[in-house]
Structure formats: structure tokens, C-alpha cells
């Protein structure tokens, strides 16, 4: 385990170096969050009662989304991994006494985490002090706060486990571009990154909630703002655990298959 930990550390500290990029990111996400809220405000002024989430719930959701963007952005991939497969540099990684799946998983986590650490605090702190109803409220109950943190981590792991499937697919397709564009849009849309899932039509929503994408950012953020009732929290967290288990198992299996057939490119 130690080796994965030190790998995690080297990646994390490496990622924490990029302060300039982080400030630029913070600024962008502020503007983006603000614009999204203003857009929703227009809808809410027309008929608040017919909409599924209250405006304070929505505000919390949007600011959490911006704060933890780096954990849940589906369009971010580690190009090192793609390059190592297509160029054949993976040869060196295969010559090490390590589990490649675990190694890549840890690498992904570290890169996303280092970005999130730099960005989330300024965004969340400022968002607390914004005028009502545009601010982020505190978690509705202490239990919800605690469950939010657990669910935040689980959702993060679900997303990384899912993106592992994309990395593994490159063993078969060699070019990641097509599959990346496709999955990125699907995950962003069905995960609630574009509009929160409660805004989906009822029938579609029932289906979408069963997919792994709903177990990514949707669950923790909706626990935090109280949209998921406290009696339902355990159920949705359990759902996250189940999806995490399935995705991990699937990824490991596919990786094993891929490595059996892998052709290391180049002489």
C-alpha cells in the first residue's frame, strides 16, 4: 500500500504547484456559478411553485458544484495515461511490481484532489457571504453535513472508477478522442452537471437515478442542501457503494483482459 501512497503524495504535491492556474480557475468558476444562478433566477421569478427545488437549495447546489468542480469534471482526463498507452511507454509501468489499475486510480485521484484543494476554499468561503438567496447555506442538519462528506468521497470514487473504463478502452481503440467526447457529454448531462437532476421530466428522472452518473455529484450535493430527505440519505449512499463496487470490479476485469492482449506499441 505504501507505494501507492507515495505515488499519491508525489502527484499531489506536483499538482499543488500550479497556483496561477488555480486563481484563474477560481475566477472562472465564480463567473460561471453566478451566471447559472442568474439564469435560474429568471425561471424562478416566473413561477417558483412549479419548480422542483427551492432557490436556496439550488444556490447551495450550484456553489458546491463550482467548488468541487475538479473532483467531478467528467471532461478532465490525464493525458499521461493516454500517451503512455498509445506511445508504448506503458512498457515501463508494466515492468514494475505494481497493480496498474490501482496505480492509475491513485494518480487520477491525486490530480483531481490537488486541483480541488486549491479551488474549493476561496469559492465556498466567498459563497457563504453572498447576499441571500444567492449564498450557500450551511448543511440543513449536522447528520446531513457528515453524510455529505462521506457521500462526497464516495461520489468522487465512483467518478474515478468510471473514468478508468475510458482509460482502459484506449487499449482497444488507440485513439481516445471519440469515446471521450461521447462519454463526457453523457456523464455531464446525466450526472447533473448541466442542470440538476430534479429538473428532468419525472419518467426520465426515475431511470436516470438508477444510473451510476446520479451517484457522482448529485447525491452528495442533494444531501447537503436537504433535497434528499434524511430518511432517504442512507439509501442513496448505499446506492453509491453498490455502483462503486460494480465499476471497480468491471474496471479490474477489463484491465486484466486488456493486459493479456496488449501490444506495446513501438520497437
Amino acid at each position, binding site marked *: 500500500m505504501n507505494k501507492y501512497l507515495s505515488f499519491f503524495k*508525489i502527484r499531489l504535491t506536483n499538482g499543488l504547484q500550479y497556483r496561477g492556474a488555480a486563481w484563474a480557475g477560481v475566477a472562472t468558476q465564480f463567473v460561471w456559478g453566478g451566471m447559472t444562478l442568474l439564469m435560474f433566477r429568471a425561471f424562478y421569478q416566473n413561477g417558483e411553485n412549479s419548480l422542483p427545488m427551492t432557490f436556496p437549495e439550488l444556490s447551495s447546489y450550484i456553489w458546491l458544484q463550482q467548488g468541487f468542480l475538479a473532483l467531478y469534471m467528467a471532461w478532465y482526463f490525464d493525458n499521461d495515461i493516454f500517451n503512455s498507452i498509445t506511445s*508504448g511507454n506503458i512498457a515501463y509501468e508494466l*515492468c514494475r511490481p505494481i497493480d496498474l489499475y490501482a496505480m492509475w486510480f491513485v494518480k487520477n485521484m491525486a490530480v483531481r484532489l490537488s486541483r480541488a484543494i486549491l479551488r474549493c476554499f476561496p469559492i465556498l468561503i466567498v459563497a457563504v457571504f453572498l447576499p441571500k438567496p444567492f449564498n450557500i447555506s450551511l448543511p440543513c442538519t449536522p447528520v446531513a453535513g457528515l453524510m455529505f462528506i462521506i457521500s462526497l468521497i464516495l461520489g468522487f470514487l465512483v467518478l474515478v472508477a468510471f473514468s478508468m473504463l475510458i482509460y482502459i478502452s484506449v487499449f482497444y481503440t488507440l485513439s481516445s478522442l471519440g469515446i471521450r467526447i461521447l462519454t463526457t457529454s453523457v456523464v455531464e448531462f446525466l450526472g447533473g452537471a448541466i442542470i440538476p437532476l430534479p429538473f428532468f421530466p419525472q419518467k426520465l428522472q426515475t431511470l436516470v437515478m438508477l444510473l451510476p452518473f446520479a451517484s457522482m455529484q448529485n447525491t452528495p450535493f442533494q444531501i447537503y442542501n436537504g433535497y434528499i430527505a434524511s430518511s432517504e440519505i442512507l439509501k442513496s449512499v448505499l446506492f453509491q457503494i453498490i455502483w462503486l463496487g460494480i465499476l471497480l470490479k468491471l474496471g479490474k476485469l477489463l484491465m486484466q483482459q486488456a493486459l493479456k492482449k496488449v*501490444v*506495446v506499441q513501438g520497437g
Partner: protein
Amino acid sequence: MIELKNINKTFKVAKRNAGLSEAVKALLRKEYSYIQALRDVSFTIKDGEMVGYIGPNGAGKSSTIKIMSGILTPDSGECSINGKTPWQERIAHVREIGVVFGQRSQLWWDVPVADSFELIKDIYKVDDTAFKRNLDELTELLDISEIIRTPARQLSLGQRMRCEIAASLLHSPKILFLDEPTIGLDAVSKIAVRKFIKTLNSERKTTVILTTHDMQDIEALTERILLIGKGKILLDGSLRELKKRNSSHKRLTVDFVGILAEAGKGMSFTENLDGHAEIVLDTEVISVSEAIAQISRQVEINDISVTGATAEEMVVSLYKEFEI
């Protein structure tokens, strides 16, 4: 102990002719061809041996190295390295080997080399005292103590290669695979690398398998050579035997004043410029002294030297002999 028995490997390669219409056709129906990279490759290498693995580009050298290091699974055949089958017990196997791919890098690009070394230490769980001892020894032998605080991206190729080799040896592997370790290096670095490999083999008794196109590497390092061509092992023997086979050819280098017009029987020019000529002799036809006598009759000799065939020439004649 490395044992390969009847290893076969075939690659499936997509193929199409050039041009747009062909590209469209390929969308509908792809044509594949099968390339047999290795055919019944078998050999045995004992502990502590140093073996040169040579052959032209595309002969199957790298594929063999990849199979032996557990990266590639062959279609059929057996391979046992210290009692383990590489592709079946990959993780246990790679703990005992070191690999250097001359054309790739294992050092992390933007961190100092020393950080990469630390990470490798953790990956292989090398204990602190062994790591310290290894690091001190390697930095001294490879002369890299000055540069390991520099990020890998700022190193020259020769500096980087020395660091790569050190990185592959930090966990004291019993077997070292070197895939073209001197590719692109200048003369000084090449000599440093060769000297180091030689020391490693004689002092640590590390088994070394070396692929290269540089015949000076082979000449300086290995006693035994394996020649592979078109996926088959064509020759397994010592460099000395090979040399004996080719000893009927000698090379004469002559500097002279005058015009050296014709070569006699058993002599052929490989170069004949104004005042300088290189002549290959077939000693079964003409003796060296007779050849020199013939030349001195035609011109005034300033300087003359006689050498046996170089390893390079031997390999060229071998490639010709086996039609590879």
C-alpha cells in the same frame, strides 16, 4: 537461469493502400495481415552470463525482450526465468529484473531525478540501507552525483541514459535487460555506459542481455551472441568463433604517393581516393605480404595498416549469409 522454448508470436496488422478512396474502403472492410514476429525461439542463458542479442530492425529483438520482461504474452511456447513464467506471474517476476528501454524514459519528466529514484525505492520496497548503498555505488560508477538534483527534462541524452540505467538497478535485480542502451549517445557516454555494464556483470554477477545495433557494444561487452532474423534464432555462439569464420578476410589501409591503378587477384577496393585506399583481401587467394609487395611495386607507401574484419562487417556478411 533463463530458458525459452519454442516461443511464437504473431501480430495482427491493419493494412491499406495509400489514398482517399482506399481509406474509405478500409472503413467498410479492413484488411489485416499477420506478421510472425517470433518463430520457435529457444535459448538458454545461465546466471551471470552477458549475452548480445543482435539482428536487423524488425527481427524480433524487442518482442523477445518484452516477452522476457512480462509485458507481452506469446501465442505459444514456454519461458521460464528463475523458475517463473513472466506473463503469468508478472508482479513477482518483475521484482527480480531490471529493464532499460533505450528509446523510452522511466524518469518523471518534471521532477529531479533523485525524486524518481525515491519513488522507485518505494515501488520496490527497497530498505533504506540497501538503497543508500546502491545509490552511492551507482552515482559514483555512472558519474551522476552532480546531476541527480536536476529535473529529467533538463538533462542531455547521455546524462539521462546514465540515470535511466541507475534507476533500473536500484532494486538490485538479478537480471538486466538492456534494449539499445547506447542509442544516440556520444562516444564518451557510450564508453562510460559500456564500462559500467562490464563492472556490473563482473562484480555483481548480474545476468545481462543486451540488444544493440552498435557492434562496438558487442565487441566491448559480450562473449556470446545470439543472432535473430525474421523471428528465428540463426546463430548462437561466441564472438571469437564468428571472427574465426571470417578471418580469411583482412583489410588493408594504405596511404601512398602515386596512382594505385589496379587491384590484383583476391584484392578489392572499398575505397580508392587520391593517396588513400582501403582494400579487402581474401587471404585464401593472396597472402598479406604478397599483396603489400604488389602495392609497393605500383606506388610509394607512406603508411599501411592491416586489420581483421570488424564486427560490423561480420554482421553484414552474416545478414547476407542468412538472407535477412
